[in-house]
């Protein structure tokens, strides 16, 4: 079935978050793990990112967090060297 607009947007946000956390927060590149919503891992990584970048620590992909993920930035990761 074709995805609804909201579902498409949710998927797109999740892809953005996955790529961002993999690239800058050392999230293991395991798509299956992400798709299965390993809640603890993802939430922990989102919280880590929110804390480091001075956002409200919610562990959720809220508007502010997604906005920051779309901003231009340095390509050096924030954690995991």
């Amino acid at each position, binding site marked *: 079935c074709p995805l609804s607009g909201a579902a498409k947007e949710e998927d797109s946000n999740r892809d953005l978050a996955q790529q961002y956390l993999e*690239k*800058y927060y050392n999230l293991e590149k395991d798509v299956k793990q992400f798709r299965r919503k390993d809640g603890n891992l993802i939430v922990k990584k989102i919280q880590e990112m929110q*804390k*480091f*970048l*001075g956002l409200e620590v919610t562990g959720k992909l809220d508007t502010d967090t997604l906005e*920051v993920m*779309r*901003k*231009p*930035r*340095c*390509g*050096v990761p*924030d954690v995991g*060297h």
Partner: protein
Amino acid sequence: FSTFPSMPKWRKTYLTYRIVNYTPDLPRDAVDSAIEKALRVWEEVTPLTFSRLYEGEADIMISFAFKEHGDFYSFDGPGHSLAHAYPPGPGLYGDIHFDDDEKWTEDASGTNLFLVAAHELGHSLGLFHSANTEALMYPLYNSFTELSRFRLSQDDVNGIQSLYGPPPA
């Protein structure tokens, strides 16, 4: 501020840099000027001095590149990742790569080359990202910085001086 693990730093105060190639977005002298200005930012608060090489291997090799460019850290097209740099050391270490899919500018109309160069030079000298939103070493690009009044935050100064000390009196 923070430094890279095991605090790599240059063991000399006289460093060399080389601009390997240029972006088509700006005249060459504008690129030269942005890099020189970015170097001065760090020179003013440390004992470090920088000298330009036009050939051969410099401590800090500066280049513009697209997408995959030979270091396993591909650039990602316009936006997102603007540049990256390596901590002090031989070979690739210390080098700076700018993503040439960005629109590099002298002012704030695109991505300001001076601001990004100054940030990346911080990495080349051994600083890691800072969580202080006022710091130059904060990882997000701040397009609202008033360029004419740019100055390092105290966090940046404390960070770089923790590695190299203050400039000679």
